[in-house]
């Protein structure tokens, strides 16, 4: 009888058609895409672990990576967990953590990460293929059963500074990726590839070229090195067939003298047609940014009533310390307010454009501004619970003195034009719960230092996240009260996920070199 069950499992091994991902909420025992669903919720419909029993969580197994500060968010399908590291992927037996296969691609000796670490945030799966992005800017399709390469495509040349650290996003027949390199003077883009062949289906440049709409927001040749990286996985609305993707900072980061104008589509959210990559709308959070406030966040899609009408919404807790709610059909700004300390804008106008306080840009002598260059939140994921209607955000409360320096573009080197000095020893943070439709703060859990970990919300009424001191913890989703904590022994700089093993709910988080799986 057991053998029959095994055979059935084997037959079902990693067949993950688009329809399964589309309806991910119907199979909460799996975690089929980066954020758990296309809407970017990082929410588990599993309700077995609750505020009453969460104290009983303990480690079931652990898996060790070779690299430190692992940022991976695992994919879980039918008893197999897929994890990634820099130029590395592995399939693990979900019950034990034992490797089923591993895949590695050598990192070229002359490859350099310019402005970030050697990390990878996870894989995507579609049908029987696992997709992985690499530091040297290749997209690789691996057979889900063996780890053998089906195809490998160069997304861009790594030598001038292009790189990839993100989990790809697999939608119907397409695999989408974005690039890192915002400190190296790249010209950013979002690419879609045909899942079965690796042929590029479309490319959307985040910095419009001559003759394209938005190009007028640049002057001279500044657009050629304008940045606009796209290094965090986007979200997808299948009904509208729109892909929502955050765009990074303009280059050079802190010296904006050479690039007058709004510098579209940097520090923006873009909505692209899933079939063609054509721009449907954009919303720029920080025009003419000079603080390195990438808008590379997971956009969160939900439905809600705003200004008297039920609408399709998209919300972003931005690195610039403001929380934004937009109509995701049109891009219209609906609501926005600060969710963390900020000293650079008086507020947002009716269209959501910041009313910038003069003299807050970086300077020769230094300018003290909140938030610091890492922002009030960064790449790590927020969570949205349809049960509570709350958005859970890991918040950083740090100010810094911003400096402006010269910036000469040389391909493959820093094109930054300054930096920062943090004047305070105290660098606190928090997990904050925001009313999703308005951004009003409902509760907060204060943290000793600013976090680098994402947040998971569950139907059991819990919120999970981690700290840089190694705490992995659970909070009451309605009150923020801490209910359980485990010291992992290393900084938590990853996103948690939830799934079932043998029908029982489990939670996974990476902390430094170790991936932990917790169960009751």
């Amino acid at each position, binding site marked *: 009888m057991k053998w029959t069950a095994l055979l059935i499992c084997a037959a079902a091994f990693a067949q993950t058609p688009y329809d399964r991902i589309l309806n991910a909420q119907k199979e909460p025992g799996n975690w089929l895409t980066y954020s758990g669903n296309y809407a970017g919720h990082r929410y588990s419909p599993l309700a077995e672990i609750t505020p009453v029993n969460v104290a009983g969580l303990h480690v079931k197994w652990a898996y060790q990576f070779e690299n430190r500060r692992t940022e991976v968010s695992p994919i879980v399908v039918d008893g197999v967990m897929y994890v990634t590291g820099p130029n590395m992927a592995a399939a693990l037996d979900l019950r034990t953590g034992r490797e089923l296969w591993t895949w590695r691609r050598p990192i070229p000796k002359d490859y350099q990460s310019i402005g970030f670490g050697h990390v990878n945030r996870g894989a995507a799966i579609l049908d029987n293929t696992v997709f992985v992005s690499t530091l040297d800017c290749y997209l690789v399709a691996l057979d889900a059963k063996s780890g053998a390469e089906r195809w490998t495509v160069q997304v861009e040349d790594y030598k001038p500074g292009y790189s990839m650290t993100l989990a790809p996003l697999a939608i119907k027949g397409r695999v989408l990726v974005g690039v890192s390199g915002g400190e190296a003077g790249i010209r950013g883009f979002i690419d879609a590839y045909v899942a079965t062949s690796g042929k590029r289906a479309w490319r959307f440049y985040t910095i419009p070229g001559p003759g394209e709409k938005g190009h007028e927001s640049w002057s001279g040749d500044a657009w050629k090195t304008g940045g606009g990286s796209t290094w965090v996985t986007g979200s997808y609305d299948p009904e509208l067939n729109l892909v929502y993707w955050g765009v990074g900072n303009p280059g050079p980061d802190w010296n904006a003298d050479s690039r007058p104008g709004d510098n579209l589509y940097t520090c923006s959210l873009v909505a692209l047609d899933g079939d063609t990559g054509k721009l449907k709308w954009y919303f720029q959070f920080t025009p003419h940014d000079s603080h390195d406030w990438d808008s590379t966040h997971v956009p969160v899609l939900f439905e809600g009533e705003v200004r008297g009408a039920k609408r399709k919404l998209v919300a972003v807790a931005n690195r610039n310390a403001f929380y934004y709610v937009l109509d995701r059909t049109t891009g219209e700004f609906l609501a926005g307010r600060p969710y963390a300390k900020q000293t650079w804008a008086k507020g947002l106008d009716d269209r959501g454009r910041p009313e910038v306080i003069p003299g807050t840009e970086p300077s020769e002598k230094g300018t003290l501004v909140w938030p610091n260059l890492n922002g009030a939140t960064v790449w790590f994921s927020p969570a949205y619970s349809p049960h509570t209607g709350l958005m859970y955000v890991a918040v950083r409360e740090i100010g810094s003195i911003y400096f402006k320096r010269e*910036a000469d573009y040389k391909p493959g080197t820093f094109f930054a034009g300054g930096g920062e000095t943090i004047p305070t020893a105290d660098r606190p943070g928090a997990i904050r719960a925001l009313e999703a439709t308005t951004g009003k703060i409902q509760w907060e859990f204060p943290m000793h230092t600013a976090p680098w970990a994402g947040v998971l919300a569950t139907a059991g009424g819990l919120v999970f996240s981690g700290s840089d001191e190694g705490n992995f913890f659970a909070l009451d989703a309605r009150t923020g009260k801490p209910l359980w904590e485990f010291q992992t022994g290393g900084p938590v700089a990853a996103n948690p996920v939830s799934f079932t093993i043998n029908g029982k709910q489990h939670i996974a988080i990476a902390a430094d070199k170790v991936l932990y799986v917790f169960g009751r």
Partner: protein
Amino acid sequence: MRNCILIPLLAIPALAQLPDLPTGKQIFESQCALCHGQSGGGGRGPSLIRPKLNKAPDDAALREVISRGLPPEMPGAWQLTPREVASVAAYVRSLGAVPQQMLPGDVARGAHVYQAKGCGACHMIAGQGEGFGPELTDIGARRNPTHLRQTLLNPAASLPDDFLYVAALTSAGQTVRGVRVNEDSFTIQIKDTSSRFHSFRKSELKELRRLKKETPMPSFEKTLTAAELDDLTAYLASLRGKS
């Protein structure tokens, strides 16, 4: 004519690599500050304001680190000329350097003052003494004499950024005062004045008082003569680590 001068100059590698601090500072601020902070105090990368750099024990090693990088995190500055690399290296060295100075005190007499005043009851030098306070074996390489003198007179005014004296009030009504050795969002570890470690979960404490600007080190303003202060400062400034 110009060429005639340039060629012999460039033919001497030592001259071609003569470092220039302003150039080093300029390159550091535009290329290195993103990770190491605008003034070298650290950020994503480590602080460089220290006399010894773990991964660059000497100048040649530091130049190598700058030009080749430290994979996986630190990219190499391959685009810099050898002279530019040497300039950045010289600037980085200058950040944490505490130059030796001629001081009014006497080192040998200062060592006696150190013994007589019982400093070793809290500090260690070259393996001798107690480990409650900071080790002083290389304090002269880490702190300049003015700072050392100030600390002896008014220790609370020159506390390091990461130092915190705390008082924890337990649910049983006991108060534990000591130096914070570690802390996270849920727990704190404290070393009391008898060097005993205490571990608390914050949720179990009635109160955790952060005694900013306080330190268990007493002021020696009234217990040292002017000459003793000079001598003790000279002695501490002479401590530059194991040779």
